[in-house]
């Protein structure tokens, strides 16, 4: 008898994370994934609609709450679009301060991701190690902005807090700590044999697929596509800084587009970000940090502005685009937010096809969608439904790691 039965496995959506939480429906044959279907929208809050009835400055704080991890990138992209419409010129110092904040967020986000990835393959000790390092980066964030998660530092026409001379030693000390520990992380993730076994040749996204499916950020760069909004269409002070595209061939000389390559890209970007912050600290001129410190005046100026523009930012997960249309009213006429994961959902399908069930967590997590908390799996078998828990899925993943270690 050679009859194969395919099962359908829905995964999700309780515990979805990010703006785009997901529910997967897998069709599997034995251990192999045949087909994948993705359902979105469990966390659709109607933010864009709500934004169309608030003024531009209120939207900054709404945009901040689109995603807690990219809580700087969203207001930044919105600000960029509004500044372009209203023709607001940002003081030079503020442009550098904005880069520092953006790169700090990238460090926090990538280290967070490294921990989640380690958790997915069953290395909880590495999760704790990375999150301990991340706390240091969060301390620095808190020192510069006053808060750990939602920072409220962005303002149309500049930033809200300056970095004074007496703050520099603390910042440099934190950066040195991060640099020292970066080496530790690099060793754990890139040299460890087990990590390599679980991540090499797993969840491959070819360059062609990445281009066709319009993937963004580290996901597409790991497949060898040179796409980085910081370089392609520079904003803030990025044009004055020295850095280049990070693709895995920088380190290994080849591009496979697998999970391992995505780890390389993210780790190298952490280093790049530390370097960028240092460059900014060195080159930052003195001067104003806000184009218009009086908010009432700024609001009146924005009320008169008319036009449409896009703001593009390279958020930790990829390019983040906001389209804004102002029509000379208090509220924007329309506002469209495109978070990076939005474009990284379709690439999951070629990545997951042909992989094993135990690889779902690490492959899904490798695009950094915060699918860390994949929760509930139901196996439908002849109309009879067995509930498999997220724990079991995680267990399968951990078991596979243990098996490989033997």
């Amino acid at each position, binding site marked *: 008898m050679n009859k194969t039965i395919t099962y359908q496995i829905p995964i999700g*959506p309780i515990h979805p994370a990010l703006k785009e939480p997901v529910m997967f429906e897998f069709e599997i044959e034995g251990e192999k994934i045949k087909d994948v279907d993705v359902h979105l929208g*469990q966390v659709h809050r109607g933010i864009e609609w709500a934004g169309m009835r608030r003024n531009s400055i209120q939207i900054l704080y709404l945009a901040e709450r689109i*995603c807690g991890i990219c809580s700087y990138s969203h207001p930044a992209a919105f600000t960029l679009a509004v500044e372009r419409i209203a023709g607001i010129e940002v003081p030079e110092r503020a442009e550098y301060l904005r880069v520092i904040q953006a790169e700090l967020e990238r460090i926090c986000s990538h280290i967070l991701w490294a921990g989640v990835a380690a958790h997915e393959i069953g290395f909880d000790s590495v999760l704790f190690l990375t999150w301990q390092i991340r706390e240091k980066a969060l301390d620095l964030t808190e020192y510069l902005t006053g808060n750990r998660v939602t920072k409220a530092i962005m303002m149309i026409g500049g930033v809200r807090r300056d970095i004074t001379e007496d703050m520099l030693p603390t910042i440099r000390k934190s950066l040195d700590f991060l640099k020292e520990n970066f080496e530790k992380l690099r060793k754990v993730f890139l040299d460890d044999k087990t990590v390599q076994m679980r991540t090499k040749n797993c969840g491959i996204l070819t360059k062609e697929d990445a281009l066709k499916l319009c993937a963004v950020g580290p996901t597409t760069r790991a497949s060898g596509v040179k796409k980085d909004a910081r370089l392609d269409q520079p904003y803030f002070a990025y044009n004055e800084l020295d850095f280049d595209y990070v693709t895995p061939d920088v380190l290994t000389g080849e591009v496979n587009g697998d999970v391992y390559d995505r780890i390389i890209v993210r780790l190298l970007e952490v280093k790049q970000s530390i370097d960028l912050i240092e460059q900014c600290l060195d080159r930052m001129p003195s001067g104003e940090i806000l184009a218009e410190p009086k908010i009432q005046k700024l609001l009146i100026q924005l009320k008169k502005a008319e036009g449409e523009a896009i703001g593009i930012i390279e958020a930790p997960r990829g390019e983040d685009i906001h389209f804004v249309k102002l029509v000379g009213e208090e509220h924007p006429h329309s506002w469209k937010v495109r978070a990076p994961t939005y474009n990284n959902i379709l690439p999951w399908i070629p990545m997951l096809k042909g992989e094993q069930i135990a690889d779902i967590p690490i492959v899904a997590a490798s695009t950094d969608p915060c699918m860390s*908390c994949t929760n509930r799996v139901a196996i439908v078998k002849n109309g009879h439904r067995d509930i498999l828990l997220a724990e079991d899925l995680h267990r399968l993943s951990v078991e596979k790691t243990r098996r490989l270690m033997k």
Partner: protein
Amino acid sequence: MAKGLPKAFKKSLWVYHINSGSCNGCDIEIIAALCPRYDAERFGIKLVGSPRHADVLLITGPVTRQMVDKVKRAYEQMPDPKAVIVVGNCGNTGDVFYESYNLVGPIDNIIPVDVHVIGCAPRPENIIYGVIKAWTKLETLEAKK
């Protein structure tokens, strides 16, 4: 609440976490609370992967239309006695998402809530304090019997 608190309840709380549409800010702070800096696990507080194993439900977010049913079901699956903690402003009041066509919250409209942890996002210390409050509440309930 069921008769008496089981022994395990006094010593270690197992927590199940649902994101009902939050921005993820509270969720990363919850994980941060469990990691070495704050280390809630030293008190035996542990995040579990199933509501059936949990004593406490940590819930974040303003509850989207799609999640109402799932939140209710997770709550029903938890064994008694149980406590519900809402983490973050948007789950408590709606906060910045006060007006929407796709939100059903705040959470106390949907399931009974014992502790409200406010802040956007609340600090890990705050979250741990919330869990302790839930603990105290359950102990008081037991003492009244």
